[in-house]
C-alpha cells in the first residue's frame, strides 16, 4: 500500500533516544535505521484510523525498543537450525529496525475523548480517573500514554472487557486480548524456551518486534500497545505459571530489558506497554502480581445509568443487524425494567434473543422476558 508520509525522520523527527551507532559503519547504520523507521511509519500510517481516534500517528515521535547485539562470530551452538533461526530473526530485526511509533500522545483532545467514557461506562469512573490522571502526567513530560497497569475487578458482566476495548479504541492503540483462563504457561506472553523444537516468541515479542496484527485488527507498530489480560485470576495454577512473565513485564525497571525465552539474546524495552487485566476474584492472584497493578473495583452501574446503557445496547444491536427501520427506536419501559435486573452481558443476550424471536414470528413487537436468562442463573438440579 502506497502511503505518503507527511513528515518523516531525517529532519530530526523527534527520536526520543538517538541510536548509538555501531563503531565501524555509523553513517550506513544510521541511514539503514532511518529507512527501517520509514517502513514502520508507512505501515502505521497505512492502517485506517478508527473514526473516534484522537491519537495521530503521523505526528508521533519514535522510540527505541531494542538494541541489536553484535552476532557472535563463533556461535557455540552446534545446531544448524538454531543458527539459521537466529539469522532469520536478525534479518527481521534489521529490516524493521529498532524504532517504533509512540501512540496515544498526551493531549487535551485525548483527555476529552477519554472523558467520553464517563457517559458510556459510568461504573468505571475510578478507572477513567486513573487513566486521565496518567494522561495529565504524560502531558507534563510531553510524552504518550504509556505503562498503564490497570486491574479491573468486578462481577461477571459489568463490562470490564468492553471498557478495556473501548479505551484501546479511543487511544487508537493496537490491542492484544489474551484470555488467561485458557493459558497454561507463560509462553503465550514471554515465549517458549529455545530447547523446544517448536520454540516460538510470545505475544510481547510478536507485537513489539514483528509488528503482528493485534486481535482488534491493527498492525502493532507502536511501542505502547495495549495488552488486555482477560480473566487474569483464572489462569491455571495446577502446573506451569501463565503469569510468570508478568513479574518482569509489569515492573517498569525490569521491563526495560525484557527477554523473550525464545530469543534469549535480545533484550526488549517493554516498559511502555499498557496493561489492563480483568478479574472476578483478585485474591486468587499472587500478591506480587496484584501489587504491580492499580486495582479498581467495578460495580454495577446505578439504575439510571443502567437504563441508558440498555438503550445503548439496543440501539447498537439494531444498527448491527440493520433493523433500525423495523423496530422502534427506543425500548419500552417494561423491557428496560426487565433488562436492568441482569448484568450487561446477560442483558445483551436477552435482547438478541428477543430480536431473534420477533424476526422469527414476523412481528415488530419486542418482548423481553427473563425466560431466555442464562442457564447459570436458573436453579436446576440440587439446590
Amino acid at each position, binding site marked *: 500500500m502506497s502511503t505518503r*508520509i507527511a*513528515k518523516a525522520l*531525517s*529532519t530530526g523527527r523527534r527520536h526520543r533516544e538517538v541510536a548509538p551507532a555501531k563503531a565501524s559503519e555509523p553513517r550506513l547504520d*544510521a541511514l539503514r535505521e*532511518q*529507512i*527501517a523507521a520509514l517502513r514502520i511509519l508507512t505501515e502505521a500510517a497505512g492502517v485506517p484510523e478508527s473514526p473516534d481516534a484522537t491519537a495521530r500517528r503521523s505526528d508521533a515521535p519514535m522510540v527505541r525498543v531494542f538494541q541489536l547485539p553484535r552476532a557472535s562470530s563463533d556461535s557455540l551452538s552446534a545446531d544448524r537450525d538454531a543458527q539459521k533461526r537466529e539469522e532469520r530473526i536478525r534479518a527481521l530485526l534489521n*529490516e524493521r529496525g529498532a524504532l517504533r511509533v509512540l501512540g496515544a500522545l498526551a493531549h487535551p483532545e485525548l483527555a476529552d475523548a477519554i472523558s467520553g467514557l464517563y457517559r458510556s461506562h459510568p461504573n468505571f469512573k475510578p478507572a477513567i480517573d486513573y487513566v486521565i490522571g496518567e494522561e495529565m502526567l504524560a502531558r507534563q513530560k510531553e510524552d504518550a500514554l504509556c505503562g498503564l497497569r490497570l486491574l479491573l475487578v468486578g462481577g461477571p458482566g459489568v463490562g470490564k472487557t468492553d471498557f478495556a476495548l473501548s479505551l484501546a479504541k479511543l487511544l487508537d492503540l493496537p490491542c492484544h486480548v489474551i484470555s488467561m483462563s485458557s493459558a497454561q504457561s507463560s509462553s503465550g506472553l514471554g515465549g517458549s524456551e529455545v530447547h523446544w523444537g517448536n520454540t516460538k516468541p510470545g505475544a510481547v515479542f510478536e507485537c513489539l518486534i514483528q509488528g503482528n496484527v493485534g486481535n482488534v485488527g491493527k498492525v502493532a507498530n507502536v511501542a505502547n500497545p495495549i495488552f488486555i489480560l482477560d480473566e487474569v485470576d483464572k489462569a491455571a495454577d495446577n502446573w506451569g505459571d501463565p503469569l510468570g512473565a508478568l513479574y518482569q513485564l509489569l515492573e517498569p525497571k525490569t521491563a526495560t530489558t525484557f527477554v523473550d525465552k525464545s530469543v534469549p539474546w535480545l533484550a526488549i524495552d517493554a516498559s511502555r506497554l499498557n496493561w489492563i487485566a480483568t478479574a472476578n476474584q483478585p485474591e486468587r492472584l499472587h500478591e506480587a502480581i496484584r501489587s504491580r497493578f492499580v486495582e479498581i473495583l467495578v460495580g454495577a452501574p446505578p439504575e439510571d445509568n443502567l437504563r441508558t446503557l440498555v438503550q445503548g445496547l439496543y440501539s447498537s444491536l439494531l444498527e448491527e443487524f440493520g433493523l433500525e427501520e423495523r423496530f422502534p427506536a427506543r425500548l419500552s419501559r417494561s423491557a428496560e425494567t426487565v433488562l436492568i435486573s441482569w448484568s450487561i452481558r446477560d442483558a445483551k443476550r436477552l435482547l438478541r434473543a428477543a430480536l431473534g424471536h420477533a424476526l422469527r414470528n414476523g412481528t415488530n413487537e419486542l418482548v423481553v422476558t427473563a425466560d431466555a436468562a442464562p442457564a447459570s442463573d436458573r436453579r436446576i438440579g440440587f439446590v
Partner: protein
Amino acid sequence: MARKKNPSLRQEAFSHPCLEDGDATERIHQQWVGLYQFTSPAILDEPEKLKQAVSELDLDLMRCSLTMLRRHLEEAAIRDCALLTAERVLDTSVGQESLERWERWLMAAPCWPRLAQENWYQSLGKSAEIVVNALADSGIVLDDSTRGDIEREIGMLQLSDLLTKELMERFFPRKAAGDEGTSGQAGG
C-alpha cells in the same frame, strides 16, 4: 544551418567529429584489421612496411575510440557503484551479501577501484535515485522533504562507510592510511 540535437538519445553522448566523415563503422573495421599488422614480424622487421602501416593509422579515430572506452568504463563504474551502494543501504541480511558483491566487483580488474573513486559522487546521485525508487516499490513513497534528507544522507556516504577496514586496506591502501588524495577524487 546549426544541426539540431537529440539530447535524450544515446547517440548524443557518443558524437565525435571524426565519426562524421564517411562510413565510420567501415573505417573502424579497417583500423581494427590494420592493427593486426603490428603483430606480424614481417611488418615490424621491415622499416618501409612499418612506415606504410603507421601511415594507414587513423589517429583521430583511435583517440576517439579510447575516449569512448574510457567513457564506457566510467559509465559502468557509476552505474555499478550506484547499484552496489543502494544494495548496501537496503541490505538487511545477516550475511551482508552486498558486501561480498562489492568485493567481487573491486577484484574484477585493477582499474575498478580507481574508477569507483574518481566517479564516486556521480554514482551517489544515482544511488539515491535507486534507493528512493526501491522504497516506493515497497510502498514507502516519500514526501519531498524526506526524499531530500535521504538523498543528502546517501550523498555523504564514503567508500569507507560501505566497506570493511580490510577491504579498504586492500583496494584503497592510501585512503585507508589516511591520505585524502587529489581533490577531484573521493570515496575514502
